[in-house]
């Protein structure tokens, strides 16, 4: 062909699928970084202590919970502040990440109507922001462990794997719920109630030993039970998870990520019409 350029875009051969969305996300990785940066910088921009709030926030919640509940559980749990904080970090990451996925897609929707952006960029950047916050909040955890005189175990080196599993699960769930919220706006409200119930059904503020044996099988259906365990065992009990504990957690993580991604990308063509 003499002068003719190759088509850059041809709607007839252009399919939005799970794989091509991944490629597009790679192409827009700079935007991913910019969105994470924006969310972290702007969240505390007008407060005096700034990003320090990321660490002070769970610390404050932990102090209140310790104050309120330590009389109940003191005999059961040694180093209760460490117990509570390690669970709270996991839960905050999940709640924050999935909520930000929903609001991110709704906010991004106004842009998706005007310019082309791969729509998964909003959900992925939401989890990226939550991940930065999670890593930052490991600092207060270490401080609390030092103050409380809790031992530091070698098993804590397992934590990067725990974080990986939690991230995969949260990303998958965030993509799923945000896609649902686009089509049913009530989902966003309903999800807040669900989150509260879910938190109380997960052993975060109360020790696992309080759960009666009768209810244990029910608890084990809860994926967040396994995610919290992946953090508690290395930090608190000083051992890495056994295979029986590791397999359910990784199955949930991988399964949710795949389901969430497929569900989200199967509907990307509709977001510009619907959001």
């Amino acid at each position, binding site marked *: 062909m003499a002068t003719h350029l190759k088509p*850059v875009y041809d709607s007839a051969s252009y399919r939005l699928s799970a794989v091509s969305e991944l490629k597009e996300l790679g192409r827009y990785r700079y935007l991913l970084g*910019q969105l994470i*940066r924006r969310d972290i910088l702007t969240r505390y921009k007008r407060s005096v202590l700034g990003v320090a709030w990321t660490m002070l926030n769970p610390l404050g919640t932990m102090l209140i919970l310790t104050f309120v509940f330590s009389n109940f559980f003191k005999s059961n749990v040694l180093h209760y502040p460490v117990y509570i904080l390690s669970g709270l970090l996991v839960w905050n990451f999940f709640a924050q990440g999935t909520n930000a996925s929903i609001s991110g897609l709704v906010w991004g929707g106004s842009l998706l109507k005007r310019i082309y952006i791969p729509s998964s960029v909003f959900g992925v950047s939401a989890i990226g922001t939550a991940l930065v916050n999670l890593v930052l909040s490991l600092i207060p955890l270490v401080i609390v462990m030092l103050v409380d005189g809790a031992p530091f175990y070698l098993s804590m080196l397992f934590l990067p794997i725990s974080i990986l599993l939690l991230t995969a699960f949260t990303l998958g769930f965030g993509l799923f719920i945000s896609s649902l919220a686009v089509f049913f706006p009530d989902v966003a409200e309903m999800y807040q109630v669900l989150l509260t119930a879910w938190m109380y059904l997960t052993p975060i503020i109360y020790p696992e030993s309080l759960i009666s044996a009768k209810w244990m099988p029910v608890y084990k259906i809860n994926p967040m039970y396994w995610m919290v365990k992946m953090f508690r065992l290395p930090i608190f009990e000083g051992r890495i998870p056994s295979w029986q504990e590791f397999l359910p957690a990784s199955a949930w993580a991988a399964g949710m990520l795949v389901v969430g991604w497929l569900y989200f990308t199967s509907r990307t063509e509709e977001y*510009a019409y619907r959001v």
Partner: protein
Amino acid sequence: MLTVSDVIEEKSGLPVSQPMIQLENVSVDYRLPSERIGTFKEYAIRKLQRKIRINKFSALKGVNLQINKGEVFGLIGNNGAGKSTMLKVISKVLKPTAGRVVIYGKIAPLLELGAGFHPELSGRENVFLNGALLGYSRSEMEAVFDDIVEFSELRQFIDSPVRAYSSGMFARLGFAVATAHMPEILILDEILSVGDESFQRKCNLRMKEFQQSGATVLMVSHALDSLEGMCNRVAWIDHGIIQRTGKPQEVIEAYRGGNL
């Protein structure tokens, strides 16, 4: 593979116009639910009763159009005629319901000036954020950063938060970011009416520069007079159908006549 135009070109030695945007029988249907269904319960009940009524609204009906390299092409029509839908189909935002869209170059869509700016971030930070939204990389943005500051005349304020900017400053920065890279195809949706007169002149000058260096410009506007001055060709679209394509003066006259 040789096409007919290649053969003609080889024989005559004259350059044949290179298409940049091709629409073949493009239709877009919006499906609007006749009532808003916001909850699962309603959805489930109606689905069972088969009562989800959907109104089909055709924004484009079998549009055929070719825009060639170097053209400044204007699109006119009443509100709701399908102009914006056409831009969306071309810029990959919407997939056509039927027909085919082929694009032969990199497109720079112009965001409504400043959409995507974050008020708490500084001008500098917003330049990079906005550039990323338009699909540019860090190095691409760093290369044009000084030009952007220069063009927007905001050097003094570039590190102040954007919430302190006037709407004119906002628009200037937005335009500067969107046009910092010379695209092969530039899409402008009703933006010529922003900013004061001196800035508008500056915008028009930049458009001319683009055109002279071979970029293709597609613009939508209600400012018919300025469109007439800038475009090589204009199409009038009404109810999703192209009524007429041709010389700006003729098409605009026909459009005005059709609206009387």
